[in-house]
C-alpha cells in the first residue's frame, strides 16, 4: 500500500457481457481526503462502488482497502469501514433503539452520543419502526449509525437519493463536519453534484470506459472555465483546447482548461474573431457538464 493511501485500485477492468465498463482503471484515496465519484449514468460508478465493497469481482485488477483485497476483507478491516448502501438501506423491522443496540455489539469504539445527537433532530416516536419513517429520517438513522461506528473509511453510495433539500443539507453538514474534524477518509457518490461541491476535497469524474479527471475540486474550479464569444458558425474541429462548443444564434459557448489569452491566440489563428470573449467561473456541476457534455 502506498504511503497514506487508504484505498488503492489497480488496473481494474470490468465487462458486463461484451460491454466494457472500463479497462485498467487506477485510483487511490489518501488518508483524510474526501473523494467524490462523479459520472453520468452507466459510466461505472456503481460498478466501482460494488468492487470496492467486495460485492463484485472485477474481470481483472484489484482494490485494496487498508492493504487488503476488498473481496476478502478481514473482520478487523471491516470494523474500520462504514458503509452506506444506496437508498440508506437498513433494517425496517427495528426502531431506533433496537438498531442502535444491535450495531453497538459489533463495534468496540461505538460512540452512541454521535448517534443520539442526530436522533434528537428526528421528530419521531422512539418506538416507531424504520419501515414507518420517511426517506429523510431513514437517511439520518443510517448516517447516525455510521458516525457511531467511528470508522476510518466511509463509503457512501448515492447518499442524496430520495432526500429533500433540507435533509440533503443536514446530511452533508453533519458528514462534512465529522469527516474533517476526525480526519476521516470518505469515498462518496451522488447524482446531485451541488451536494458534492460542499462536501468533497477531490473529484474523480468518470466517462464511458475511463477516468476523465481526478484532481482536487479547488484545482478543477480554478483551472477549468467556460468561455463565450460571438462567432460566425465556423467549425471547431481540430481545436483540442475547446471542449463541447455549442453555437446558438451566433453566440458560442465552450469549456477549456486553457487561459483566456492563449485561447484568444488559438482562436484567432484558426480564423475566429474572439474580440468579445468572456471567461466565466464554474460551479462543480457546470464543470462536470463542461467535461462530460450535456448529453
Amino acid at each position: 500500500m502506498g504511503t497514506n493511501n487508504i484505498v488503492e485500485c489497480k488496473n481494474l477492468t470490468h465487462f458486463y457481457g461484451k460491454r466494457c465498463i472500463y479497462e485498467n482503471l487506477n485510483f487511490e484515496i489518501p488518508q483524510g481526503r474526501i473523494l467524490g465519484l462523479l459520472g453520468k449514468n452507466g459510466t461505472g460508478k456503481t460498478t466501482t462502488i460494488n468492487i470496492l465493497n467486495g460485492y463484485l469481482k472485477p474481470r481483472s485488477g484489484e482494490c485494496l482497502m487498508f492493504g487488503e483485497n476488498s473481496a476478502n476483507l478481514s473482520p478487523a478491516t471491516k470494523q474500520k469501514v462504514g458503509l452506506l448502501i444506496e437508498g440508506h438501506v437498513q433494517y425496517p423491522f427495528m426502531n431506533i433503539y433496537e438498531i442502535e443496540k444491535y450495531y453497538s455489539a459489533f463495534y468496540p469504539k461505538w460512540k452512541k452520543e454521535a448517534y443520539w445527537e442526530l436522533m434528537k433532530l428526528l421528530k419521531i416516536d422512539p418506538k416507531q419502526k424504520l419501515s414507518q419513517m420517511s426517506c429523510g429520517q431513514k437517511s439520518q438513522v443510517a448516517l447516525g449509525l455510521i458516525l457511531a461506528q467511528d470508522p476510518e473509511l466511509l463509503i457512501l453510495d448515492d447518499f442524496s437519493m430520495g432526500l429533500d433539500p433540507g435533509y440533503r443539507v443536514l446530511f452533508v453538514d453533519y458528514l462534512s463536519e465529522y469527516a474533517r474534524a476526525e480526519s476521516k477518509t470518505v469515498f462518496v457518490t451522488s447524482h446531485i453534484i451541488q451536494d458534492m461541491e460542499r462536501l468533497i476535497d477531490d473529484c474523480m469524474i468518470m466517462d464511458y470506459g475511463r477516468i476523465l479527471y481526478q484532481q482536487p475540486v479547488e484545482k478543477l474550479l480554478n483551472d477549468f472555465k467556460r468561455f463565450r464569444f460571438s462567432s460566425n458558425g465556423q467549425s471547431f474541429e481540430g481545436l483540442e483546447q475547446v471542449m463541447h462548443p455549442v453555437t446558438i444564434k451566433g453566440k458560442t459557448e465552450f469549456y477549456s482548461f486553457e487561459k483566456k489569452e492563449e485561447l484568444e491566440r488559438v482562436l484567432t489563428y484558426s480564423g475566429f474573431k474572439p474580440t468579445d470573449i468572456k471567461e466565466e467561473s464554474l460551479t462543480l456541476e457546470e464543470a462536470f457538464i463542461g467535461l462530460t457534455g450535456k448529453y
Partner: protein
Amino acid sequence: MEKALLYKEWKKTHVFTLTIGVIGIILMVYIMLKLGRSFRMAGMEHLWDVIVNRKQFLFRNLKYFPIATALCLGMAQYFPEVIQKRIKLSLHLPLPEKKVILLMYSYGVGILTIVYLLQLIALLVFSGINFPYEFTINALLTIAPWYIAGFITYLFVAAICLEPVWMRRILITLLAIALIYLFFLSDVPAAYQSVNYLLVVALVMVFPFGFYSVQRFKEGKQ
C-alpha cells in the same frame, strides 16, 4: 456479536416464529382430540384394525406441517434480506461471512428444531400412553422423512432467496421440488425405514447450497 445477530433474526421473524409455534401446538392438540374421540366412539379394536390391517397412519395430519413451517420461516428470514440487497449489511459486519450465514442458518434450524421437538415430545407422550412401544417406534420412522424434508425445505428456501442469478434460482427451485417430492412418495407407515439414512445424506448435501449462493452474490453474478 453472535448474540446480536441472533437478536436481529428474532426481531425479523418473531411474528412468524410465534405463529408457527402456536399452529404446531394447535395441530397436535387437534390430532390428540380427534384420536381421543375415535378411541371413545369406535373403540381401540377398530383403531387397531385401521392401523394393522389397513396400514393407515394415525398422525398423517402432521405430514405437510414441517415443510409448510420451514417454507414460511425461510421466507420470513431470507426474503427481507434480498429486498434492496439488505444482505450486504450482514455481510459487511465484522465477522467472517461464512459465520454470518452459519449463524442465520443456526437461528432458523434452531427454531424449527424447537417447534418440531415440541410436536415430537407430544407425540411420544400421547403414543406412549395409548399404544405399544412398537407402534411408537413405527410412528417415529414414519414421520422422520417429513421432518427431514422440513429442514431440507428451509435450506433450499435460504439458497433460493440468497441466489442472485434468476436462472439458478429456478433450477434450485426445480431441484428442491423434485427432492422434497421424494420424501412424500408413500403414505405407508415406516415406508422409508430402510432409506432414512439416505434422506439424512440428502440433508447434508443441501447444506452448502446457501453458501454457494452467497459466494455468487459476492462475486456480483447477475
